[in-house]
């Protein structure tokens, strides 16, 4: 019945742009990219050296409500506006590095598991089960507590405990794709095993991973910020949304005096995560064959 219709790509794009939430997500994402790229122009630089260190503007730790000079206010002597703007870069860095590496590890382990099968598969999948049995946040907390403070430690901890779901996903997809007739046909043609994987299996299994990745960027940024909030993440004064939020822990009983230290970085974080989730959601609808007519 499928006679020639519009090209698949154009159809997908049309569908994408017709989806209001997808457009909203894309716009938000573009906004954050602009903020990240032009951070020096928007918030200035730290003349003392490291740009990711929020410059001190006051030696008193008392919160200062927003003024024209410090539009988002000051907490712990640090300018929140500077922190939020430069924190965008930190968020992208965290999200992309963690997602990228954990997906890489996940794809590698999942593929090995599915390809070799047998006891290799059995052992790898048990390892996945074991890693999944430690709650993600708790595992990351233990890891960062032991490794010590610093953003790099957070990244390592989240990668170590973040690859499992990708591994499971890709393994399942490969096992499913391996039974497809076009894979058997390629085998019958005499195609080499690794070429079958590269040409026939991975192109048909990688999209769910892409969708999953885009959805996970948000949750990694949240977790990293959470660790900073608990004081086991980035160092104090680092341009990171979670770090700014963690200053409020000292003012917990009078948040009305430090509301700006929650509202501004919090809003940035919500919008950032929302952007990725919206995009991921739209991508999933598009790639999910069941959603197509």
């Amino acid at each position, binding site marked *: 019945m499928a006679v020639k219709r519009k090209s698949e790509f154009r159809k997908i794009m049309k569908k994408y742009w017709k989806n209001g*939430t997808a457009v909203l997500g894309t716009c938000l994402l573009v906004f954050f990219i602009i903020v990240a790229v032009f951070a020096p122009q928007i918030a200035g630089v730290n003349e003392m050296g490291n740009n990711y260190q929020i410059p001190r503007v006051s030696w008193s730790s008392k919160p200062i409500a927003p003024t024209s000079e410090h539009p988002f206010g000051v907490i712990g002597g640090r300018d929140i506006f500077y922190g939020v703007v430069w924190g965008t870069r930190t968020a992208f860095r965290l999200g992309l590095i963690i997602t990228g590496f954990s997906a890489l590890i996940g794809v590698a382990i999942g593929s090995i598991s599915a390809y070799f099968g047998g006891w290799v598969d059995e052992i790898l999948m*048990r*390892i996945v*089960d*074991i*890693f*999944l*049995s*430690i*709650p*993600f*946040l*708790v*595992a990351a*907390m*233990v*890891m*960062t*507590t*032991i*490794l010590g403070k610093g953003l790099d430690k957070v990244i390592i901890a989240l990668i170590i405990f973040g690859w499992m779901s990708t591994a499971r996903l890709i393994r399942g997809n490969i096992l499913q794709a391996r039974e497809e007739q076009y894979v058997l046909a390629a085998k019958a043609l005499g195609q080499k095993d690794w070429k079958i994987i590269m040409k026939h299996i991975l192109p048909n299994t990688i999209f769910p991973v892409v969708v999953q990745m885009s959805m996970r960027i*948000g949750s990694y940024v*949240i977790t990293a*910020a*959470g660790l900073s*909030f*608990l*004081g*086991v993440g980035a160092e104090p004064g680092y341009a990171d949304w979670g770090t700014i*939020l963690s200053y*409020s*822990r000292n003012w*917990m*009983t*009078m*948040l*009305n005096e430090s*509301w700006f230290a*929650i*509202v501004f970085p*919090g809003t940035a*974080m*919500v919008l950032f*995560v*929302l952007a990725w*989730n*919206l995009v991921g*959601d739209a991508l999933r609808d598009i790639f999910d064959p*069941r959603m197509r007519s």
Partner: protein
Amino acid sequence: MPLILIGVTLIIFSMIWALGPDRLLASYIKSPEALKTPDAAERLIKKYGLDEPMPVQYLKWLGNILQGDFGYSMVGKKGVLPAMLERFPYTLELTIYAIIPVILVAIWLGVVSAVHQNKFIDQFIRVFALVGWSLPDFVFGLLLLLVFYSLLGWFPPGMVNTQFDLIMRSAEWNKITSMPTIDALLNGRFDIFVDALRHLILPVMTLAYLWWAYLLRITRSSMLEVLRKDYIRTARAKGVPENIVIQKHAKKNAMIPVLTVAGGSVIGLLGGTVFVETIFSRVGMGRFLADAATLLDYWSIIGGALFFSFIMIVGNLVVDVSYALVDPRIRLE
């Protein structure tokens, strides 16, 4: 399952081991009883096998764990295990109060959303859920605290009022379950029960919000898939009213993936108590972990990790069993 337990302890131990013998020794020495004796260092090195290869150390450590010796907790100022057991009921109480409304509301909304796919109500619920899913729990908690305590003064943080707290610490207070709301009822103090509930509202809302956003999404997509199935058409063809088609024929099938996917993840979200208890100054396992992390109290945090992992493993087992109860195709095996 024993395999997984062993694996978990191995992973956690290898993290401890990464500390190196010096820092390990230093951390052991912090326990007050260790400090009483002069040859503490040698004794500890022997006890934990710090001068021996990793497998031996692991076995010694595991042996201690199995005997209930999780080390000394600086946060709890006592052994790690008793400190945790003392705090666990508070977390359990919070979780139970959060989980019941979550499951009911999330499944109900998920079904509504799926049945009215792409209608206004569906779009509304979806956006609501998506925002919920994007809202970090600690940000949401801080905002709630800001609005309902700092600005409006309605719901204070903590467990109970100071005066009630004193009563609860006193000798005549009967500690039966250690869960304030239940103990209050058992002690016949309705006023304390109400007060404890008042303190629970914000934490429960915070914990619940994230959960139900997640559950709702899974329910919705599972329901959408089921509604396309042939047997739904069969049910309609034999004249089953639409609401029974949805509530009975579709929902029971849709719950199968909800159980497997969501069951495990909800247990995983237990981690959320770390933030909730920290923000609302509640005593509990989550707060225990957070404080331990701040104080670099290794033994407390490792004990906490083991504790949470154990709960997660048991929880997954429960999910597997209930899965078989719902799906007759599994029961057969």
